[in-house]
């Protein structure tokens, strides 16, 4: 297993792997999206309190989950790159940042669309909302740092430090904001005991979560591929891939 791991940590092999897998992943995610959306928007019954507007959770909850998952991917890749100097991880971290920022923005936008009919306001300074907004700023800061430093390798390493510092800070931000004020409902599914949700509503949500997850990986692979090609543009395998022959 370690040998396989080592093999796919090399940019060339990972590039080939990502090229092979990104399209099937996209298709699989599209099928799951179709199933999840049909289940969530058509088959699931309307909520007895919230009516039809509850259906926004089929986009809101998966994107909120992914907003945090993408950060863990970014920071995890950053930590690995700082410790073991794996080039691939630099590419993965850089590729994950804009995706995470998009999912965070999507979670915030859908949340405020839901908040207007339910809470009567687009935005409240609630714990979840504020820490999610700060997560968005952490992503944007990472991306700003990436674009400010010209040398890609140096930018990736500086970004890795920032991402890891951000990980330490995320629980602090989360709990400080939580103790400060709160309105957002607590977790429904990831709590101890059975989920407090009807099965007909839950299954489409899980399908959507899986679809989002696969979409994330497909896009991550595509973005990481182009990052790798730029990182490694002077290396032999990229030139061969592009049909330019050997450097000299």
């Amino acid at each position, binding site marked *: 297993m370690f040998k396989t791991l080592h093999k796919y940590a090399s940019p060339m092999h990972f590039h080939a792997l990502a090229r092979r897998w990104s399209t099937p992943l996209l298709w699989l995610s599209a099928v799951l999206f179709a199933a999840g959306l049909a289940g969530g928007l058509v088959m699931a019954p309307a909520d007895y309190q919230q009516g039809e507007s509850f259906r926004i959770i089929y986009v809101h909850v998966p994107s909120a989950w992914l907003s945090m998952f993408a950060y863990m991917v970014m920071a995890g890749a950053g930590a690995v790159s*700082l410790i073991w100097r794996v080039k691939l991880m630099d590419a993965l971290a850089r590729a994950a940042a804009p995706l995470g920022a998009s999912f965070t923005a999507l979670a915030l936008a859908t949340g405020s669309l839901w908040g207007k009919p339910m809470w009567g306001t687009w935005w409240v300074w609630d714990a979840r909302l504020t820490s999610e907004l700060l997560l968005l700023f952490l992503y944007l*800061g990472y991306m700003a*740092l990436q674009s*400010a430093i010209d040398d890609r390798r140096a930018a990736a390493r500086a970004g890795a430090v920032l991402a890891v510092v951000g990980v330490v800070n995320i629980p602090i931000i989360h709990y400080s904001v939580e103790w400060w004020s709160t309105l957002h409902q607590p977790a429904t599914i990831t709590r101890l005991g059975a989920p407090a949700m009807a099965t007909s509503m839950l299954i489409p949500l899980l399908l959507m979560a899986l679809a989002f997850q696969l979409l994330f990986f497909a896009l991550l692979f595509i973005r990481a591929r182009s990052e790798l090609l730029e990182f490694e543009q002077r290396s032999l395998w990229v030139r061969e891939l592009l049909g330019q022959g050997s450097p000299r």
Partner: protein
Amino acid sequence: MLSTPPASLAILRREMLRLYRRRGQLMQPPLFFILVAVMFPFAVGGDENQLRALAPAVVWVALLLATTLSLEDIFRGDHEDGSLEQLVLLAGSLPGACALKALAHWLSTPVPLIAMAALMSAVHGLQNETRTALLVSLLLGTPVFSLVGTIGSALTVGVRGGALLLALLILPLYIPVLIFGAGAVRNATLSMASGSEYFFLAGLSVLAATLAPFAAAAGLRARLV
């Protein structure tokens, strides 16, 4: 962290000397702080009660902004004259050196700002309890600004447009301190205990003091190697 006490003393002395020689520049954060605080009466209008209610929040935010603007200087001069490379090359003492840099920054910027805040809260006629809570929370919380700021300063050293980028990177990380600090003052205004907020601020400072120097050192190595 440092191999020898004399080495760390030398670094600290050099820092303080460097700051003292540019004492004109040291006046800038306090002036900026006062200017920001003075903007509020103009913006809010002359309502005494409203101003008094806003004063602690204004002091915290103005102090935070003034500190953020000064962070760029922690490593910039050293980077320009090449002594930063020497600091990185010193055997095994980079996190220690970063901690000392943070200490020097804390003494040179937040501490004068806190003195200024004490003066201003007296001028604004804050109640005694509120003033005490404000000053205690500032003293406990501002080390986080310097320590975490050292990381941001290390990451943006030698980057064009560094000051604004630094603010973008570092301000989200300051939010917890702001929440607890302003919370302590709010509690005092309502005659409630602020003990838990003090403990949180002290805890954040201790956490930052243990981890931030290592992150700043990693950041410097990432930028310079």
